[in-house]
């Protein structure tokens, strides 16, 4: 007996926001307004979503107008993160547009007296036999989209898609090339004032006294704001606001602050803190009892990493009575609104949060913090809008960082050096303290005001959402037994939250490094070793594709090394394999990265390649150069000199192949490359120099230290 087919369901974002008109509107000027809840953060998402809509509706992509997310009208799609926008917003839009198309075809059929199955749509014009025709816009009055989406709308077959699945030019790029204002920084509101916030250099210090004498003489000063330990200025120009802040700083007295960990012993710090311990996964099989001949025990360290976006965080806010309008580059307008409502003690309906673009966003940076700063300063602006922009120094010291990690793996090996047991333990702060998710706000100024909230200690998303510190810690490889344990710190002297991949980069670095080491022990080719331990064909294919493309394994040459790394992001997302070619003696340069990626259906293939290239280069920067520096009292890496990132001359050649899977639901590409590239560079370092650096970043000092340890 056959089970009945499962009832069709709506994509998750559409189920949460079923009203069709909240996603799609035909506008009178022959255009289509598409309103996703996800936002452009430099990843090209608005273009991919426009492609999906253009395809399902059969309109030229030039007719699509992408509406920026706002709590005033947009569907609530939570946060733009986790490489989920194509998956969530894309599926919702595809489904919604398919239903809109059906509704219009039904209306056209009625008006034209032609069976709907005989009608065709071309660029919004609906035509049928006998040269009858109408259009979306002619029918717009007859077709209400104020209906909830129904499950079961049929999207186009893959072969019928002419826009999605093909590379198109990004819709936002011309504005950026011709310097037409698009970034929040470049869009002044009428009557705009400028604000700056006073923040301590000493970590955790509180403002205890403020002498305002010096500042009163600053020309252009409009207001000094003080709310407990929160203080800032409002002025009639940015220059005046800067001058006022300087004067304010002179009059500030701070408490002693809270000590920071010992930067030179991150593992010692991470392993000595109170923790919440979770067993993430265990696997036992009959073979588990097989006696281990030896156990390899290795520790891997990832430092704190800064978002270090090129633009400092910026926001604008304007009060009107007890209502406030906020312009922000937050990743989640509804989530930010929820936190603002808690701090302001206002109903959420009194707050409108509207998204505007900023520079690349790689996770939970200071975008939300600066929004509350602007809201608090704008209270003193008499109804005028206030724009607040953080300094580079604040951006590099007060914004949350990606969390440091200590990862210990014990691998039990039998007499043939085959893996018979695997224990992976992670010590790390949580990787998420995002706004809008808890009863307490996650915003910086909320910890400074008169009745302050405690600093939110980062937690980890549940395993179903890919986990946090434990992300990618469960091997995709067929090992006989494993135990994966996550120790989340309950103290947080250095503020951490979500940065690209969360714990994924650290865990993939650790797993792939140790696998490489075991393959080398066995004298087995590291790619053959990986393929032998994988059953997932998509996984194997990206590894094979990268190997083919890099002509694995090139002849060994002195001073050159090659290494491989692989992961499926979150174990549910994009598959990515990377091969690194490096050169060096006691310092290394990454010459070339060859990657293969499988994202299922690639909506905008060039966009996917762009994201993978970008992720690979950013990961190279993390691996070779980046760590947040601090002494026992303050963050010291507060400028580009103290927090260097990869420069043009240091960037490797990057070559990307997409393994085409148009029949498989698409997933995001933004975070797929970081883990594999990190591991590939580390493994290439071993191939080149014969030492394993297990403590990131891989700098000259670390290589020399590893050489000394090995000798």
């Amino acid at each position: 007996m056959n089970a009945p087919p499962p009832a069709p369901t709506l994509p998750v974002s559409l189920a949460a926001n079923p009203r069709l008109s909240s996603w799609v509107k035909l506008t009178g000027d022959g255009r289509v307004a598409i309103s996703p809840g996800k936002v452009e953060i430099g990843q090209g998402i608005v273009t991919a979503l426009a492609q999906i809509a253009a395809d399902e509706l059969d309109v030229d992509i030039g007719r699509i107008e992408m509406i920026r997310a706002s709590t005033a009208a947009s569907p609530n799609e939570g946060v733009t993160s986790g490489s989920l926008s194509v998956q969530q917003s894309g599926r919702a839009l595809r489904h919604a547009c398919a239903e809109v198309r059906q509704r219009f075809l039904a209306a056209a059929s009625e008006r034209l007296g032609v069976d709907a199955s005989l009608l065709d749509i071309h660029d919004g014009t609906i035509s049928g036999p006998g040269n009858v025709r109408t259009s979306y816009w002619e029918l717009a009055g007859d077709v209400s989209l104020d209906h909830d989406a129904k499950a079961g709308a049929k999207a186009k077959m893959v072969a019928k898609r002419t826009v999605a699945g093909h590379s198109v030019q990004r819709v936002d790029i011309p504005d950026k090339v011709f310097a037409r204002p698009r970034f929040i920084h470049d869009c002044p509101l009428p009557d705009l004032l400028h604000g700056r916030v006073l923040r301590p250099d000493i970590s955790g210090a509180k403002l205890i006294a403020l002498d305002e004498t010096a500042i009163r003489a600053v020309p252009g000063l409009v207001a000094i704001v003080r709310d407990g330990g929160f203080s800032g200025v409002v002025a009639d120009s940015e220059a005046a606001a800067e001058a006022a802040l300087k004067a304010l700083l002179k009059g500030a007295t701070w408490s002693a602050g809270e000590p920071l960990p010992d930067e030179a012993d991150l593992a010692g710090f991470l392993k000595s803190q109170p923790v919440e311990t979770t067993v993430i996964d265990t696997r036992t099989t009959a073979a588990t009892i097989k006696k281990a001949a030896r156990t390899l025990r290795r520790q891997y360290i990832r430092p704190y990493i800064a978002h270090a976006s090129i633009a400092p965080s910026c926001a604008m806010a304007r009060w009107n009575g007890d209502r406030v309008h906020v312009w922000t580059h937050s990743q989640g307008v509804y989530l930010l609104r929820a936190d603002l409502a808690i701090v302001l003690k206002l109903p959420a309906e009194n707050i409108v949060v509207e998204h505007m673009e900023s520079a690349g966003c790689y996770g939970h940076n200071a975008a939300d913090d600066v929004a509350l700063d602007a809201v608090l300063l704008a209270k003193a602006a008499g109804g005028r809008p206030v724009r607040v922009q953080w300094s580079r120094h604040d951006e590099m010291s007060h914004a949350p960082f990606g969390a440091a990690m200590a990862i210990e793996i014990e691998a039990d090996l039998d007499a043939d050096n085959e893996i018979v047991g695997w224990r992976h333990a992670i010590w790390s702060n949580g990787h998420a303290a995002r706004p809008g998710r808890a009863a307490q706000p996650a915003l910086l100024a909320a910890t400074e005001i008169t009745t302050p909230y405690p600093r939110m200690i980062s937690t980890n998303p549940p395993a179903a959402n890919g986990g946090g510190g434990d992300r990618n810690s469960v091997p995709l490889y067929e090992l006989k037994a494993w135990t994966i344990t996550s120790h989340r710190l309950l103290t947080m002297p250095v503020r951490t939250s979500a940065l690209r991949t969360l714990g994924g980069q650290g865990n993939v670095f650790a797993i792939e490094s140790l696998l490489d080491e075991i393959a080398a022990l066995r004298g087995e080719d590291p790619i053959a070793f990986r393929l032998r331990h994988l059953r997932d064909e998509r996984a194997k294919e990206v590894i094979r594709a990268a190997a083919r493309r890099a002509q694995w394994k090139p002849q060994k040459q002195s001073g050159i090394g090659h290494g491989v790394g692989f992961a499926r992001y979150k174990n549910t997302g994009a598959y990515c394999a990377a091969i690194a070619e490096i050169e060096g003696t006691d310092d290394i340069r990454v010459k070339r990265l060859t990657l293969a990626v499988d994202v299922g259906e690639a909506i905008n293939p060039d966009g996917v390649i762009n994201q993978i290239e970008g992720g690979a280069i950013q990961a190279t920067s993390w691996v070779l150069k980046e760590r947040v520096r601090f002494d026992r009292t303050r963050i010291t890496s507060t400028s580009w000199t103290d927090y260097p990132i990869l420069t043009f001359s240091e960037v490797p050649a990057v070559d990307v192949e997409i393994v085409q899977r148009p029949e498989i639901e698409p997933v995001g590409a933004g975070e797929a490359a970081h883990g594999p590239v990190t591991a590939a560079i580390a493994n290439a370092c071993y191939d080149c120099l014969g030492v394993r650096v297990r403590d990131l970043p891989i700098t000259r000092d670390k290589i020399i230290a590893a050489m000394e340890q090995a000798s």
Partner: protein
Amino acid sequence: MPMIQFQLNGMAAAVDADPEQTLLDVLRGRLGMTGAHFGCGAGECGACHVMVDGRAMASCDMPMWSVADKDVVTVEGLGTAEQPHPLQRALIAEQAMQCGYCVSGILISAAALLKRNPSPTEAEVRTALDRNLCRCGSHNRMVRAVLRAASEMATS
């Protein structure tokens, strides 16, 4: 405050400004030209680059007194959608960005390079862009775009 005179995108400009105020502040705050971006305020990231007498320079720490009588070109002066600079066309053709915040500074550095070296090697392009930071990892596409523009300018 003294009147400071200079050339801005080919036109005579005169600004009544505090001589210590930065050129970036004057461009963005006084003149409403938001192409040059603030990134660090210390001349370390290149987001605010403008051309001064043909050389790409940071405007975020450039006092107005030093701009007097100079020839300043901002990204707004390079080209428009109707009459794009070859570099602007090439950046679009190569889809050479992700967020695009660093792009106006990149355009200026590249334009200054092509002025003094119309047919640079790839290594020369990279060196010329080393004072511009890009965090999204679009470097290689940008380098390809500059080389494309150079060869287009050579044949036209």
